[in-house]
């Protein structure tokens, strides 16, 4: 990964972190979402990972049997607890997770996302994404604004299979922050260095320009 890509990811992760307020329980997906944790200092924010841990923290001493959902080594904070996958998804589906931060391959203009399958490739993995989308009280998507080919990930309609019929609540890219209200994307913020023109050019989806600050 180039250091520019890296910088973009850290920028997005930092912005997502600032969205979190304690007390809350937050589940972080694989990729950019995982980076969010290091920008959070509020002790009232607890990280949940669906493979069975509430109280994820940065790894101190690597333990092959202490990992997050991305199978990366993590640590456990004071007051953490372990539980089975069945209990963990009971927490997710049952509405006990305040915020899920997820990656996406595509977002449509109603705020629905596709993040688990690509047509033409065998569909062989879904993981916990569908559960998080139906269960988490608030869903934040963190993603690069464009694909590697330079196409907008914020599209009129997803061409990849949807992960859920539920619209997410917020989309954070390196260019902008959108909130989703009544299945409509509202541009609420330009990211540092980004211009409105740039966002308009890079976004296929229709969006409303909210009263945003840049």
């Amino acid at each position, binding site marked *: 990964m180039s250091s520019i890509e890296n910088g973009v990811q850290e920028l997005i992760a930092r912005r997502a972190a600032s969205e979190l307020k304690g007390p809350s329980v937050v589940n972080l997906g694989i990729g950019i979402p995982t980076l969010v944790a290091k920008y959070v200092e509020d002790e009232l924010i607890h990280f949940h990972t669906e*493979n069975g841990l509430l109280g994820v923290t940065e790894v101190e001493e690597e333990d092959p*049997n202490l990992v997050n959902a991305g199978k990366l080594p993590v640590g456990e904070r004071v007051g953490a607890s372990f539980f*089975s*996958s*069945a209990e963990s998804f009971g927490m997710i*589906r049952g509405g006990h997770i305040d915020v899920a931060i997820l990656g996406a391959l595509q977002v449509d203009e109603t705020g629905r996302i596709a993040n688990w399958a690509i047509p033409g490739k065998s569909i062989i*993995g879904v993981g916990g994404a569908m559960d998080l989308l139906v269960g988490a009280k608030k869903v934040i998507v963190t993603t690069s604004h464009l694909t590697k080919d330079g196409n907008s990930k914020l599209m009129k309609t997803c061409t990849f299979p949807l992960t859920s019929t539920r619209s997410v609540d917020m989309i954070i890219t390196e260019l902008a922050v959108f909130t989703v209200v009544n299945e409509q994307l509202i541009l609420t913020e330009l990211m540092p260095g980004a211009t409105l023109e740039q966002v308009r050019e890079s976004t296929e989806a229709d969006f409303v320009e909210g009263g945003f600050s840049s």
Partner: protein
Amino acid sequence: MVGGFGLVGAPLTLIEGLTGKDVDGLTIISNNLGEAGEGLGVLLRQRKIQKAIGSYFTSNREVGEAFQRGEIDLQLLPQGTLAEAMRAGGAGIGGFYTRTGVGTELAQGKEIREINGEPYVFEQALKADVAIIRAHKADTLGNLIYYKTARNFNPVMATAADLVIAEVDEIVAAGELSAEEIVTPHLFVDRLIVAKKILTKEGVIHRKRCARVDCEACCQ
């Protein structure tokens, strides 16, 4: 059923035993099929697996390849639905309704029912003939406790198979595990073995001796 989230909490010794056995046409219920050439990935290469039911086979790229060659059937479930279906199987629940997956390709062909104004999809319970699982300690009665995130699917699989074989780091005397901390009561467990193949920071290793002080007594 085979416990574990990838290789974490997978019963590596029992899986290895299976790779040496003359079996085929297996249906494996497991979150993943290990990694390429590790854990259940070995059984895949041996073409002993006819069908796999799981949620995230992406962690072993050879699964997709085998699927495209038509060598294996795959049934994909959302991870929470997979866990819940096992729990249902173990708890005598025939099936259940979840909102997870409604409106997606994974709900195609499945019954949708409205409950309190929300659409839910019907999912059937899962049961297995045999579950091989990984725990941390067992007592001599078969009570089990787990270690950190190596717990994952293991406790729920322990409830959902006719024959349950647990691979553990250590077997202690009955009474050494506190009655309040036992996660899997012994009525779920049929057989115990001590782990010889374990996951370490350096990858999967074989150990000659187990973790017991009196190892000679249990490992030849």
